[in-house]
């Protein structure tokens, strides 16, 4: 993500959370008057970009269960989100795509609760519909005559791919090292490559155009997603309730449907 985009995200996040502060005060008193267990007010959730689809759904479900609550999301790369929280963006909840970015935040004291791993995401072989390259496993990535796309090592999906190839003792012969996982996926859905390594959730999101093939070495690079309420959450009750909702059976069902694994 470019610096300018980050700045825009930061500003918008700050605006959103400021708005959240205002409404959470009124919300708290409203909740007090009804006296029910339902939470209210605005809840600002900072979540990794790969959670966009499933968390948007979870947010709607949460609002249906808590009519007085309003969930607002700030989806971005986990490292950018961690940076924003550490720079004082008053988030209620942080859901990161990697433990490292969560450690960045707990390290500064912006989160004091113990983060809970709520899902995992693993790599999967993605092939165009019909599997024209007749891919069966990770070993096919070494074939020079096949067109192969991987993420560049500099980005997380590329680092994960490197790990599984090392574990499998395979030297891949990629034709392109893409800048992010979505770019890899588009090469597969257009049929320009025979095989690629992407996350399971990406294969699910791509629909009919892409088929996924699981492989045993994927266990060597399991991405853990931790979640926690922020220490200075403007809406602490809301934050706690949302984290609990994500960890509940209902939350798990939505996440599993999107292709995430259980921790």
């Amino acid at each position, binding site marked *: 993500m*470019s610096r300018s985009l980050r700045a825009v995200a930061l500003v918008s996040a700050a605006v959103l959370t400021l708005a959240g502060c205002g409404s959470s005060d009124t919300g708290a008193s409203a909740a007090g008057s009804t006296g029910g267990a339902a939470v209210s007010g605005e809840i600002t959730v900072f979540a990794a970009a790969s959670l966009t689809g499933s968390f948007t759904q979870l947010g709607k479900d949460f609002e249906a269960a808590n009519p007085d609550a309003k969930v607002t999301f700030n989806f971005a790369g986990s490292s950018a989100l961690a940076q924003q929280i550490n720079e004082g963006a008053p988030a209620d909840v942080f859901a990161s795509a990697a433990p490292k970015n969560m450690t960045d935040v707990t390290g500064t004291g912006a989160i004091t609760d113990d983060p809970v791993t709520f899902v995992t995401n693993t790599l999967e072989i993605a092939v165009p519909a019909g599997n024209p390259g007749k891919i069966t496993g990770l070993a096919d990535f070494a074939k020079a005559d096949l*067109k192969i796309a991987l993420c560049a090592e500099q980005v997380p999906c590329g680092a994960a791919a490197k790990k599984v190839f090392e574990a499998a003792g395979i030297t891949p012969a990629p*034709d*392109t090292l893409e*800048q992010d996982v979505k*770019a890899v996926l588009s090469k597969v859905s*257009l049929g*320009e490559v025979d095989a690629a390594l992407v996350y399971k959730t990406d294969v699910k999101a791509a629909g009919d155009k892409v088929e996924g093939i699981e492989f045993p070495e994927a266990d060597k690079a399991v991405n853990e997603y931790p979640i926690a309420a922020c220490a200075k959450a403007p809406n602490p009750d809301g934050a706690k309730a949302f984290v609990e909702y994500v960890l509940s059976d209902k939350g798990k069902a939505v996440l599993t449907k999107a292709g995430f694994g259980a921790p």
Partner: protein
Amino acid sequence: MTTRVRARRGRLPLVLVLPALLGLAFLVVPLAGLLVRAPWSTLTDQLFSEEVGQALTLSLVCASLATLVCLVLGVPLAWLLARSDLPGRGVLRALVTVPLVLPPVVGGVALLLVLGRRGLVGQYLDAWFGISLPFTTSGVVLAEAFVAMPFLVISVEGALRGADPRDEEAAATLGASRWLTFRRVTLPAVAPGVVAGTVLCWARALGEFGATITFAGNFPGKTTTMPLAVYLALETDPGAAIVLSIVLLLLSVTVLVSLRDRWISTPS
């Protein structure tokens, strides 16, 4: 002579000078920002690393080849737009500028849809001749040419429309064919426009990122040009990214300035 001219023109009007200086600052200050933030201590290591050399060579070769493609196809296209009586020239002229307004990434996807392995044309190239353009150096040249050609066409067309057609008519009355007229009369008359267009085209091709990474992918030594290397370096090492940008910048400025001295003669 210069002093006489200056005296006649009088003082420079502030209404023009102020926005001009502001414009200059707007263009130059971001470059200064890069220079200030550059980790100079690692500059030499970066400069002589194999990857940078590879990316730099590839950038220069591809941008130059793309410019050549643009010249061969673009100058005749500009001539067609400026001199022929084709119906719907206005529409054609608008179509030529499409790559200018199209986000380059979309341009790259469009190229994939036409020239990709399953593209409209690409599937036959693949089936009949075994030619596959994505993920190849030729693919980089094509992507750059696609994005850069409008710059050349527009410059040359502008020059052609500004040139006096009576010279061409005179050549025709003296019995010259249209091709001979084009070569010996038209082309020399619009040479400055062609050079300016070529320079713009080359510079645009050199900095091309979106269409290149989308159509040709990113593989070191094959399709990783400098802008792609800069982008990926930003992910892990922003300092290195700045150094790479500066290298690209210095190189392009050097080439452009030397070309200018060599070919664009300022009328004295």
